[in-house]
């Protein structure tokens, strides 16, 4: 149930901060910023250990989109779930816009919904087509009889 907290000296659950801090044996081992791997966040430029140049260019056997704000394909990319059908066309239109345009993102969200419907349709076709045909045939027979 909602409860109003008292003012000033109010403490959150779990007691007083000072005692908590003292009870904590790992307190402040990284107090010195020199012990923090991300300080400063941006370092002087230097290749990372293990890095290799030049980076060979990956070849795609399936269509892979790059957004229009980017000049070239990066050397490495994913090739999962290549674009297909109507959702694929929508995605193509989305990537024709650079990624700072809201339209790029809105079209992608639309394509995602269409993709789901396309998959549902494709999945239901094996039984949907025969049952629709049977329904149609049944309807025709009924009409013929009652005529």
């Amino acid at each position, binding site marked *: 149930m909602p409860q109003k907290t008292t003012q000033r000296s109010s403490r959150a659950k779990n007691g007083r901060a000072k005692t908590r801090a003292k009870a904590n044996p790992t307190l402040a081992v990284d107090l010195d910023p020199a012990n923090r791997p991300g300080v400063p966040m941006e370092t002087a430029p230097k290749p990372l250990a293990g890095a*290799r140049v030049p980076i060979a260019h990956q070849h795609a056997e399936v269509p892979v989109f790059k957004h229009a704000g980017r000049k070239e394909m990066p*050397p*490495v*990319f994913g090739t999962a779930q290549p674009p297909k059908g109507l959702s694929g066309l929508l995605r193509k239109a989305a990537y024709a816009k650079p990624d700072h345009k809201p339209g790029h993102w809105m079209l992608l969200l639309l394509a995602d919904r269409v993709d*789901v419907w396309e*998959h549902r349709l494709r999945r239901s076709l094996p039984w949907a087509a025969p049952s629709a045909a049977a329904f149609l045939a049944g309807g025709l027979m009924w009409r013929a009889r009652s005529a």
Partner: protein
Amino acid sequence: MRALTYQGPYRVQVEEKPDPRIEHPQDVVLKVTRAAICGSDLHLLHGLVPDTRVGCTFGHEFTGVVEEVGKEVSQLKKGDRVVVPFNISCGTCFYCQRGLTGNCENSNPGSDVASGVYGYSHTTGGFDGGQAEYVRVPFADVGPMKIPDDMDDESVLFLSDILPTGYQAAEMGEIKGGETVVVFGAGPVGLFAMKSAWLMGAGRVVAVDHVPYRLEFARKFANVETVNFKEVGDIVLHLKELFEGRGPDVCIDAVGMEAEGSRAHRVLGLGLKLEAGAPTVIEWCINTVRKGGNVSIIGVYGPPWNFVPIGTAMNKGLTLRMNQANTRRYMPHLLEHIQKGRIDAKGVITHRFPLEQAPDAYHLFAQKRDGCVKCVLMPHGHA
């Protein structure tokens, strides 16, 4: 192989799909031993990340054994056990060279917003993820870290993401010793942010969430005070009062785009998609932190925009810091913390499942049921 696949909002299943293969000479293929489910995966599950295609395999937090090695890979060989950072980073581009591996420009054709990420839609490069029996790992000499022989996979699994992420969140808070810190979100990322705030010398750490068992977990695991925002009237006023009427020195957003707490943002962001998710916690951070204070945003938000009180931040003289985690650079340092017993990384694991039960794991984690803090999948059993 068997893999988890996305089937549309709120629906995932495990199915057969082709094994991954070497597609670039710097690739390896890993046999996945552990793959965790992350709060970020929930944004995908709920259909909030643009260009999440049906069939996509999620999973960006994993360990594995090297199965196949590309021609140009020199540091890894078949049989090596590795933990892999979630960002796919080349190690040589403008950003990687400056330590910003989370911003690598050589692994994502789809957007300049982020680097390539495993199993995180085509907006981050169109790579399949690790919630599967096998996974392709590009730039294998740069990202993956070998697991020390005397350590099991689960002890280091979270070096792949949530531990460095939580650490970076605290680091971006610029704690110099004695600061008061409020961490929004008592999920795995928030928990490690709390731990890290203590490591950096915070004077007082308060966790905010609305799930009672998670607050309870935070009290035990991270030794923090807690506030349930559903049990106090106005959370901003409540927190300001806790800190002498001014608010804390540092606020950390470890919640991201699916925050509870504001009907308006949920309707606008999650319902109507007029903004990219619910930025409720950014708003709370900006309003709660003291003037001149520091807001660190590690919760994920997407493009193109959100309604956030930037004018308030300007007038209060705040420092706002944020980024994807630059995971790789934190791994050796945090490995040492784990080895020295300063952080019990695998202590956040509450549930383990075989891969076949991944959909159940997703729903358990998404609905915050059964005391779930972190779920780990075991695609090849307990080995």
